[in-house]
């Protein structure tokens, strides 16, 4: 909004002097009754107006208007202008912020998309690695289980063989112990002498 004082074509001191002149002239005309010839017909026609007083009041307005303008209208106009300026700068800032936010949002959405793509790739890679690990673990476990089975079979066979051997050895020992007992019970001096004689004779043969 523009300043009304700047737009006015009449300077303020001229208005002040003109106002004083009109106030003084109007008061004089009213008091002296110079304008009664005009005022009375108007009053008779239903228009009770005193032109001298009216001119004086216009002169008072001319004097008061610059005062009102400088002490009230101008500060008010200045406040309104400042407020308008603040609002304009605020709108500009808001617009700038909105632009910035739009840009940031676009960047954020782009980064988010990139991150999502990266995350998808990482997940795919992790899934692939997990599958490979699972396959290798499965293969290793299978191999280990097969080895354990083979080892168990070998051990079972060895235990079986050992048990069989022990049983056979026990049979041999028991049989020979029984035979030894029987021979001991049936051994006589004659038989013993014959055994010794045979030994000596064989000694001669084997010489």
């Amino acid at each position, binding site marked *: 909004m523009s300043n009304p004082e700047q737009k006015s074509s009449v300077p303020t001191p001229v208005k002040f002097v003109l106002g004083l002149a009109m106030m003084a002239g109007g008061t004089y005309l009213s008091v002296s009754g110079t304008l009664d010839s005009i005022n009375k017909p108007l009053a008779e026609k239903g228009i009770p107006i005193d032109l001298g007083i009216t001119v004086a009041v216009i002169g008072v307005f001319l004097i008061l208007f610059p005062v009102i303008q400088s002490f009230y209208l101008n500060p008010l106009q200045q406040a309104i202008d400042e407020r308008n300026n603040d609002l304009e700068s605020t709108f500009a800032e808001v617009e700038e912020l909105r632009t910035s936010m739009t840009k940031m949002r676009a960047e954020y959405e782009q980064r988010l998309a990139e991150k999502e793509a990266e995350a998808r790739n990482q997940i795919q890679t992790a899934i692939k690695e997990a599958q490979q690990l699972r396959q290798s673990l499965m293969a290793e476990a299978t191999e280990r289980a097969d080895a354990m089975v083979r080892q168990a079979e070998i051990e079972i066979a060895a235990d079986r063989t050992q048990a069989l051997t022990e049983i*056979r050895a026990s049979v041999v020992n028991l049989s*020979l112990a029984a*035979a*030894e007992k029987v*021979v001991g019970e049936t051994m006589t*001096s004659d038989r*013993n002498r014959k*055994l*010794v004689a045979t030994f*000596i004779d064989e000694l001669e043969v084997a010489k």
Partner: protein
Amino acid sequence: MADNRVAKRYAQALFRTAKDADVIKAVEDDLNGIANLVQNDESFQEFLMSPHVSADEKIAIADKLFSDRITALSMRAVRLLLEKGREAEFVNLRDGFIALRRESEGVVYAEVVTAEVLENDQRQKLEMQLAKKTACSVEATYSVDPHLIGGIRVTYGANVLDGSVTGRFRTLREVLLHDVLKQV
């Protein structure tokens, strides 16, 4: 404690001296008598081994016991052993002396174990066969071990001739167990 190496050195010295003096048989008999006394008489063994009896006292007692019963050479050997505190070596000395004598005479020593006492005719025949087999004269000691059940076992040098029932069963057991292991 008996020390075979020490006893062997004493036996070698005594055997050389006895051989030079031609008293090997007499010295061997003396050593056999003393060793048998040490092995079989506990009181004499305790006296001989006692650390509380001095060497001089032991020599004095030995003089009284043996001086008029054994040869002078044997007596000198006994005194020497006692002076040197080698009382525990009497038996090893005897064994070493006999081994040297057998080695010198080319005699084979055989240990014969039977289940029953072996009769003289069989002993003579056995020694004759062993002498033929080894081409040496044979000296044998005989003992009885009922665990043999029957038969005879002869050990000489590093050889063992086992004709006992127990030995034959042992051989049979080894053969059978070997066969059993082969079958597996």
